[in-house]
């Protein structure tokens, strides 16, 4: 495993990344390794958008093995890479897909076949074996399949990318809000920002601006006069006291509400639901969704019904697709890099869609597009560079690897 690249030279091209979620952080890391100068601005704390809020599943891809094979393959590849480049950032206990009803069993054959076709290593289990691994499972389960899921710390794992980029020389600003993009002669040349720490405002200039704002992509894109087909699609999650399982527990069926229980430290997180909104800043936490998490989660693990309440919250997925999709579930979970030169605006690229598990892969592909545009002939090396521990983000000196 190699360490970070030397700092970028003053003549290197400069990229401004708008958005400090997992995607922005991974991209900052990827570009810094290629010797490109990076400034990143995030309006709040890093990962305070969608990234920090998800239940922490490191996807095996099995959930998408039947309906969305492109996503499934992306997931299983990134799953292995992340475990290698972020050691210590996962609870590596694998996961189970559990069939509870005859209807679930009808899905079984397709599920197993889909996993095999996507290269997801699985192990078919008897109910007895599954209960041995997870004693609190619904004892009426009919079948179970073991998958290489894991739990990640939703904030700390991406923070490692920020830490590594920072130590590699990237300039990362949290609490800096983009008020507008600077557009001159059909090209985006920078952004007008406000520093929330000092109150000062000013312009930052760059050779290229990247929109990595997730469900807020549309809002930023409009500042450049272009559109991106993003539907903010929130879902509710419920955190309960008690570590009711050690493995990630999934319901074996096509996607539905409340079909996953993810253990996190001494809590269990039940998720999730899905609807679409216009404004990702106005997210309700509908009470009936919270109740549904309880009832659906209790089908997988009966103890969910009585477990103490810790928190209920919503997070907005950035789904690619038209705004008129009703529930958000039909839209693909894959990701996209959009070069707005195709829309007549130079110097502006949007990277969006995707999921927490694919942050590094998204950054690699977007980094390739950006490098080509800027005439930088260096490939991505993020597959093999071990990231610094998340504590390195705050420490003054470079710390030892975990």
């Amino acid at each position, binding site marked *: 495993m190699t360490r970070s690249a030397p700092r970028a030279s003053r003549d290197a091209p400069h990229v401004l990344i708008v958005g400090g979620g997992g995607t922005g952080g991974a991209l900052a890391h990827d570009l810094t390794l290629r010797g490109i100068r990076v400034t990143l601005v995030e309006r*709040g*704390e*890093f*990962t*305070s958008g969608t990234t*920090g*809020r998800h239940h922490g599943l490191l996807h095996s891809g099995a959930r998408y093995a039947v309906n969305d094979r492109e996503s499934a393959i992306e997931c299983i590849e990134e799953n292995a890479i992340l475990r290698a480049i972020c050691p*210590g*950032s*996962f*609870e590596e*206990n*694998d996961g189970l897909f559990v069939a509870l009803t005859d209807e679930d069993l009808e899905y079984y054959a397709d599920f197993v076949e889909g996993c095999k076709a996507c290269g997801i290593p699985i*192990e078919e289990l008897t109910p007895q074996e599954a209960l*041995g*691994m*997870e*004693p609190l499972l619904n004892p009426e389960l009919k079948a179970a399949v*073991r998958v290489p899921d894991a*739990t990640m*710390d*939703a*904030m700390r794992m991406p923070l490692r990318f920020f830490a590594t980029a920072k130590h590699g020389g990237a300039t990362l600003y949290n*609490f800096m*809000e983009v008020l507008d993009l600077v557009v001159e002669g059909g090209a985006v040349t920078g952004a007008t920002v406000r520093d*929330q*720490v*000092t*109150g*000062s405002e000013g312009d930052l200039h760059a050779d290229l601006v990247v929109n990595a704002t997730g469900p807020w992509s549309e809002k930023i894109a409009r500042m450049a006069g272009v559109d991106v087909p993003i539907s903010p699609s929130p879902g509710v999650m419920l*955190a309960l*006291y*008690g*570590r*009711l399982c*050690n*493995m990630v527990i999934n319901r074996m069926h096509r996607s539905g509400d409340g079909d996953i229980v993810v*253990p*996190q*430290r*001494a*809590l269990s*997180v039940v998720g999730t639901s899905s609807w679409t909104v216009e404004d990702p*800043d*106005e997210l*309700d*936490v509908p*009470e009936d969704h919270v109740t549904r998490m309880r009832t659906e989660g209790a089908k997988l693990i009966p103890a969910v019904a009585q*477990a*103490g309440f810790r*928190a209920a*919250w919503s*997070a907005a997925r950035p789904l690619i697709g038209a705004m008129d999709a009703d529930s958000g579930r039909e839209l693909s979970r894959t990701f996209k890099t959009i070069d707005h030169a195709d829309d007549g605006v130079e110097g502006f690229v949007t990277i969006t869609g995707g999921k927490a598990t694919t942050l590094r892969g998204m950054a690699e592909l977007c980094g390739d597009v950006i490098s080509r545009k800027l005439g930088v002939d260096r490939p991505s090396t993020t597959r093999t560079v071990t990231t610094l*521990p998340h*504590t390195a983000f*705050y*420490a003054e000196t470079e*710390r*030892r690897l*975990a």
Partner: protein
Amino acid sequence: MSEAGHPNGSSPPTRTFRVYRYKRGDPGWRFDGFEVPVGARATVLEALRWIQLHRDRTLALRHSCLHASCGTCGMQVNGREVLACVTPADTLGSTITVEPLANIPVLTDLVVDMRQLFERLPDEIGTVRTSDALPQASPPDGIETYERFEDCIECGLCLSACPVSATSDAYVGPAALAAAQRLLEEPRGVDPERILDWAQDPNGAWQCHAAFECTEACPSNVRPAERIMALRGALAGGRRTVATVMPG
């Protein structure tokens, strides 16, 4: 909660929030007052984000996971250290005072400079430990024991609550000492002598005065005070492990 009001047509009652404000370069700090609609399940963090969205976009605050796992939203609410994301706002009275954590330099508004916490942690800090849940379970083939993240979420509530930290910036603090004790309980290849050497510094384990405010404030069941006492027991020649009590 939206500006438009409660779903059934009426607006939820409002509470007065007094929020600490400070920007770098200001001569000093001040309190801003806001009237905020607070519904039945609303948390302090939701109320603060409502202020940010609808009243003052320059209000800076930290948050990420919204479920007491990331540790970023620590602050003082009516004088008590809490994580804002799991603190109900409707049981705090009609006036709610919100300030940043104590004993750590303020960056801006409700954001403190977390380097102060991270720089005190021992270098060998572990992130993953053996899972103590469901001991009767047998892990699948290829997994020797189940593991889980360490309890400490690096939120800094303990540092803010500690009366010794209130008077001494040299004291290494509860989070760091608890992390050291965890390394004695589960070494994972770390030499215990190094940890004991680190901990017996005058500004280490012996500076604690058993006020137990850190354990009181900790939202993640780390029990730093008990762990510091166990660490002192280890320094005095004994060896103790503090059992983790699962909250419920």
